């Protein structure tokens, strides 16, 4: 039984789970049954993908099933690229299921979640497995549909409905764009198989057009600015483990789509496309994380930070594109590795963060940072896992986020050898954008963790919280461990990615596992190297050393006392720094530029009894500059055309009459 067949049978099993869920959804046993089923299946699929990735077959033949497009059939194929993304998807799926085992108990409408959860997994798996345009798009849109249903799970909330609507419309916009792209690739006689597309020769014009359509289609799914507006609405609206899947995994499926088309199907696109990808990526990273820094809704903040990470990934892809175009396989491999590594890492810590947010949500019923606080005392394990994720996502050593970010920077440092001046000048600037986004990310997650978990509880809800259930904790703990492992042993991951880079850019990074001390060296040791393991050990060692020395030779006495706070009396929880106030300096620096943020404070004169007022005005320029006008235009046209509904019969007749006369005129003039 080939691995493709195994994968497909996993998918079939998931489909069976969907059907089962549809029937037993309302029973009490449904939640554990469904989640444990999907956990098991995802685990199998994950291991299959891992095996396939570690020992890639020389050639990966396509498996053809008599479904989908007649006369073509549904093609499925499992090459290293697909294998890697299957690993990501199913790992995320497995963790989400594990988490769901506990989280699902708090779900008040399980029958609106259970059937669609496995369906969502099915969609994502199929997208990656499919090897022809029809199957790809069908699974793609099916994925959107399932996730839409999950977003609508809590449909009584008007905000969720709106989110779902915007989401599904954007999704179908993306699908149509992809549809056009594939139509171009397939050519007039409809060669929809990927193999045929690969074989075909595409004109530069076609390639460019396909590229643009791809960025519109897959980019909107991935959440690239300016097509990101749906993402921060839809991801938080779903139940948290689904949010984790959408943010941590589904966006990666979109990335997969981009890679598949851009690096595999169209051959080599023009160099300017790499320029576009780089610019969009950098802009996305910065804009996304700035949004996140301003956001006070915990889950939405996470969604925005997803946008940032996607931006980082796309910078990596853009670099890979540029290097591949310039024929620098090594550098291209480095960049591509960095991008894929970032994909993997982000799926780890973003899932973890959403799990944490979900735990907080179930325990306190609050998503608003301003209403949380002091949870580290009540939910220590959750807090610890969340902290790990925060450090990792802020790209700080020795965790995994830093490793991938470091690789991206190393790739940027290869840019001087690029032939195009525009790129050589621009790439370091993009690097600056990345650095900025990383630094802002640190600020953003200090804020998130500090406000939500540290300090003193502000509301009863956060004061009365208790630790999450064991399934959730297990999922979070394992993920935290993975974040650390990937951070201190990046070499293994890099080597595992080599078949993928070989496939995509025709080169690979130097073998890492036989570098002494398990360091990673992108190009050569003389240029740069990094060793997460030693960093970790050193930090641990020196911390332990200093602690023991001090405790041994200096005082170890400890006294608990009331908060000092510069001797300021009567501290209470409401005097703490809030999320809004934490973001205020950054808002002043960046916000005025990026969000046209304005704040007005009118302080009453001393002794006056009127309250002091603080008003904050905040604009999402993309939303106001792009989405609202489009919606407005459609509404306007609809309104105008709507008058045609209320004409008199005579007027309708005159329409018919005019049509007739017009056609006759055409005929009279036609020769």
């Amino acid at each position, binding site marked *: 039984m080939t691995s493709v067949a195994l994968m497909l049978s996993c998918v079939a099993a998931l489909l069976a789970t969907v059907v089962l869920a549809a029937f037993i959804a309302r029973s009490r046993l449904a939640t554990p049954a469904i989640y444990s089923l999907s956990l098991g299946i995802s685990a199998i699929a994950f291991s299959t993908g891992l095996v396939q990735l570690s020992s890639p077959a020389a050639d990966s033949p396509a498996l053809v099933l008599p479904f989908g497009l007649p006369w073509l059939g549904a093609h499925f194929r499992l090459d290293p690229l697909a294998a890697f993304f299957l690993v990501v998807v199913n790992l995320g799926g497995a963790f989400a299921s594990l988490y769901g085992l506990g989280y699902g108990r708090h779900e008040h409408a399980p029958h609106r979640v259970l059937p669609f959860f496995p369906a969502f997994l099915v969609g994502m798996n199929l997208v990656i497995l499919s090897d022809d345009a029809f199957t790809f798009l069908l699974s793609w849109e099916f994925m959107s549909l399932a996730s839409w249903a999950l977003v609508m799970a809590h449909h009584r909330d008007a905000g969720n409905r709106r989110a779902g609507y915007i989401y599904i419309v954007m999704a179908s916009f993306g699908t149509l764009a992809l549809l056009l792209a594939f139509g171009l690739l397939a050519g007039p006689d409809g060669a929809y198989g990927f193999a045929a597309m690969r074989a075909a020769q595409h004109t530069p014009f076609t390639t460019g057009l396909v590229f643009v359509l791809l960025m519109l289609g897959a980019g909107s799914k991935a959440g690239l600015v300016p097509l990101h507006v749906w993402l921060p609405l839809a991801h938080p609206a779903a139940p948290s483990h689904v949010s984790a899947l959408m943010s941590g995994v589904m966006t990666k499926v979109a990335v997969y789509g981009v890679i598949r088309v851009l690096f595999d199907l169209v051959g080599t696109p023009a160099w300017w496309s790499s320029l576009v990808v780089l610019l969009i990526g950098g802009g996305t990273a910065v804009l996304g994380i700035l949004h996140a820094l301003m956001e006070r809704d915990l889950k939405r903040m996470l969604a925005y930070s997803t946008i940032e990470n996607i931006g980082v990934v796309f910078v990596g892809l853009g670099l890979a594109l540029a290097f591949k175009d310039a024929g620098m396989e090594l550098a291209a491999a480095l960049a591509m590795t960095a991008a894929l590594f970032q994909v993997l890492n982000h799926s780890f810590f973003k899932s973890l963060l959403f799990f944490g947010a979900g735990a907080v949500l179930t325990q306190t019923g609050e998503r608003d940072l301003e209403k949380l606080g*002091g949870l*580290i*005392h009540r939910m220590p394990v959750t807090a610890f896992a969340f902290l790990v994720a925060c450090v990792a996502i*802020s790209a700080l*050593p020795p965790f995994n986020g830093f490793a991938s970010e*470091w690789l991206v*920077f190393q790739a940027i*440092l290869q*840019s001087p050898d690029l032939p195009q001046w525009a790129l050589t*000048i621009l790439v*370091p*600037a993009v*690097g*600056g954008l990345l*650095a*900025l986004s*990383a*630094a802002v990310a*640190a*600020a953003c997650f*200090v804020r998130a963790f*500090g406000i939500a978990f*540290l*300090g003193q509880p502000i509301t009863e809800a956060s004061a009365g919280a208790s630790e999450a259930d064991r399934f959730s904790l297990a999922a979070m703990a394992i993920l935290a461990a993975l974040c650390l492992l990937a951070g201190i042993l990046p070499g293994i991951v890099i080597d595992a990615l080599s078949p993928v880079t070989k496939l995509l850019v025709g080169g690979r990074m130097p073998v890492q596992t036989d570098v002494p*001390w398990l*360091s990673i060296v992108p190009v050569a040791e*003389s*240029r*740069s*190297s*990094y060793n997460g393991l030693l*960093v970790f050990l*050193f930090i641990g*060692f*020196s*911390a332990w050393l*200093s602690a023991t020395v*001090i405790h041994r030779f*200096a*005082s170890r006495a*400890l*006294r*608990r*006392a*009331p*908060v*000092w*706070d*510069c001797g*300021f009396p009567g*501290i209470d929880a409401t*005097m*703490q*720094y809030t999320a809004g*106030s*934490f973001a205020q*300096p*950054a808002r*002043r*620096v960046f916000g005025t530029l990026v969000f046209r943020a304005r704040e007005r404070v009118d302080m009453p004169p001393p002794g006056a009894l009127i309250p002091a007022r603080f008003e904050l005005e905040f604009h999402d320029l993309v939303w106001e500059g792009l989405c609202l006008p489009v919606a407005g235009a459609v509404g306007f046209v609809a309104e105008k055309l709507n008058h045609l509904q209320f004409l008199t019969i005579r007027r309708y007749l005159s329409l018919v009459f005019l049509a007739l006369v017009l056609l006759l005129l055409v005929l009279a003039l036609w020769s």
Partner: protein
Amino acid sequence: MVLIHHLLVQIVQMALVVALAPLLTGFVRKVKARLLRRRGASVLQPYRDLTRLLRKEAVVAENASWLFRVAPYLIFAATWVAAAVIPTFATGLIFSWTVDLIAIIGLLGSARFFLALAGMDVGTSFGGIGASREMLIATLAEPAMLLIIFSLALIAGSTQLSTIAAFMTYPQVGLRVSLAVALIAIIMVAIAENARIPIDNPATHLELTMVHEAMVLEYSGRHLAMIELAAMLKLLLYLSMIVCIFVPWNLKGPDAGYAAYFTGFASYLVKLIVGGAMLALFETATAKMRVFRVPQFLGAALMLGLLATLLRFVSRSF
């Protein structure tokens, strides 16, 4: 044998930075006092402060979490590891390959991350102020620093401090506009990162102006000692980074003899003294700026960093 020798050098380096850090701070303070026509405390005063703090019992707020108590050690450890691989008197330390310049910035970032969290742990307004401002400064200082690193690495073709230092000793490097710009930028960043005037005043406890001090307000005893030491280490780190990049002369290779190491160490001391003196001079010459002018200051550093990366094209390359 060689390995032992290398390890020895490395250990000496680690001990050295810890030993020298308070001295540097004390020296700077002393010079500043002198410049202000004060006699000032002895150069060794920082050592005394640290030991005093270490002996005292640590007072911890009631609602402080474990993070509050762990953070100081983590901060110190991260800074120490970063400082341990800076070529002070010798390049090519055995563990210098574990972290390159970017990683060093990363380590300092982690230290700052935990410092800010520690500041917010107790839940006081001052802690929040400090953390928020610190992170804001970082959001501008870090990218600036990375751009500077880019401009250096793009010229030297490496992000390894040792390699860069070795590269800078080549005669054909000569004087480059980009390097000059980078130097200015890195100094500005260093000032911001180390909470020196005009960004922050290490000596003040005036609530509205303090940044670093606000975060550590709740700390006392050994915890405070750790944090202070970490801060001193950081100052030393930046100073020695700057000197090892821009005045890389008389750095000894990994396999040099002890005599050579001694001369190298002597020249390193000289560099530190000069650098410290210049810092003190600069600090006394300028006034602290309002917190909301800091972004402009750092924005300038950022622009300079970018400029440096661009200017490398106009310089001759080889």
